[in-house]
């Protein structure tokens, strides 16, 4: 289900008039958002809380369904994709602020969760990813025994296990101290360049958004401004 790029210049992702309303239109989390994300771009989305940045990320990640408007991934509209879970598994990796690891599984098994149901043996790749992220001696540890930074690195490994082209990160350093935050962001940068990943990151932190190629500012469910680095 991996969708190839139609051309190097074509955007990997675009939204048109994307809206997300709740309570019969009373609450407008997103109100007509148009954006384009280029292949291998690192885009940060910032704005005050409640501005809709997480909602935008959820919609792009197919974690929610828009009230109106559409989203295209490499020129293919989401509405025509059929089984969104399959699309999600093959093309998108998530990193959350609160890590969202499964407490009953070891670090290695957590990384392998997205591979259940996929043919092939992914254990070697999982071990390699965790080693790459500096966790070679933490493979059998459970999330409860890992530090915040280690947990987020496990989550990154998990996000990468199926070789997606798009990474969506929602405040990935929000629960980390500055040392760990920097470490995680550096790792992400390296891997992003290695694998030519597109990263869309929601963040509060100015130092984080400073690393991005482009910053999209949002307010009240709409795009306020776009700033290129």
């Amino acid at each position, binding site marked *: 289900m991996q969708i190839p790029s139609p051309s190097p210049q074509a955007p990997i992702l675009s939204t048109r008039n994307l809206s997300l309303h709740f309570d019969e239109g009373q609450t407008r989390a997103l109100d007509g958002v148009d954006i384009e994300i280029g292949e291998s771009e690192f885009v940060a989305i910032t704005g005050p809380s409640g501005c809709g940045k997480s909602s935008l990320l959820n919609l792009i990640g197919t*974690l*929610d369904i828009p009230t109106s408007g559409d989203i295209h991934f490499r020129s293919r509209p989401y509405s025509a994709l059929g089984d969104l*879970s399959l699309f999600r*598994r093959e093309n*998108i990796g998530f990193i959350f602020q609160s890590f969202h690891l499964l407490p009953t*599984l070891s670090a290695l098994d957590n990384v392998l*969760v*997205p591979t*259940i149901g996929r043919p092939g043996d992914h254990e070697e790749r999982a071990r390699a990813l965790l080693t790459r992220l500096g966790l070679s001696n933490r493979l059998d540890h459970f999330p409860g025994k890992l530090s915040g930074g280690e947990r987020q690195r496990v989550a990154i490994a998990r996000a990468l296990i199926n070789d997606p082209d798009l990474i969506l990160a929602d405040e990935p350093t929000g629960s980390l101290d500055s040392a760990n935050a920097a470490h995680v962001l550096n790792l992400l940068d390296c891997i992003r360049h290695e694998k030519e990943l597109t990263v869309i990151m929601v963040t509060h932190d100015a130092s984080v958004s400073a690393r991005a190629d482009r910053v999209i500012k949002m307010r009240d469910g709409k795009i306020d401004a776009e700033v290129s680095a």
Partner: protein
Amino acid sequence: MNLFRFALDNLYRRPARTALTVSAISLGIAAVVALTSIAWGFEASWQKANDARGTDLIVTRIASENTMPSPFVAEQVRPALSALPHVQQVVGLLSEMLTVSEDAPPVFVFGWAHGSYLWEHLKLKDGRWPADDGETVLAIGSLAAEMLHKQVGDDIEIEGRVFKVAGIFESSALVENGALIMTLTQMQQITDKPGKVNILNIKLDNQATDADIDAIKAQVRQTLPGFIAITSGELVQKNAVVRISKAMSNATILIAGLVGALVVFNTMLMSINERTREIGILLALGWQRRTVIKLIVGESVILTLAGGAIGILLGIAIASGLGHLELMRGKIDAVFSLPFLFAVLGLSVFLGICGGLYPAIKAARLQPSQALRQE
């Protein structure tokens, strides 16, 4: 890493909840198994009594709800029966439930025709059998001897007449072990029912087939109004006490089944609600909804298989153990049926699947972002 191991890990790493669910299921199953096997044992004991005697068919008055068929004059019916094809012997029996001691519950007192085949299957443990119809003596079962604290040579008063215990016997049938047996003539005398019996036992010859048995039943239906010929198995079915016991055990199975289903359902529901966030993560990671459902149903199956297996073993232990308790000794003779146990296990798993399916489908229907928001 596969779905099964994932399910197993989930259960293993939540020991408290897993133990609770498995315990609840196993208790419910144990109750079902124990009660059913005891009820069947009771029923089988009646059947054993007749099977042990070697009776092929029984002829009695058609009785609706009495536990003992009402007595009738034997000679009014015996000639007609003896004339039927394949009938080798027709032997009368008179039985009543009487109190013979102030500190013991009522016991079965049987009057068997002296010298008939009915006596042959009993094993004499002590003393002797009644010598003839005129002796006011009786033989008592080993259980009866214990309950009434009687030995050979002791006196027992029945319906105002004093009988001497001539012998103590053992029978493969529970019912007979707890009974007192005298000659038919003596029984008829003390109950003031001269010439009467309440059951005629028919022994057929070796060539009799099932078709012949059916033919005899039909003949009796036609030529002897008010009477019915049935096999010992059918008699047991008709016995009001057995019917009540079966009804009670059916009711118990139903209730236990419902309770078990509710427990499984509720536990799975609660656990799913707790795990909505986890389900959201799985969905976000690209799991298809049906894979999530398979996981949860898989966990239910593991839980109910474990609970069911433990429950069956527990139920067998309880039913067997009860039979050895001083209080219950000789009164409980549990019967276990392998097909039934498999059916119970199957039912347990089925309930587990049903119980897990509803909440699983409910959870998988959510949008991942909703599920992730749950605590």
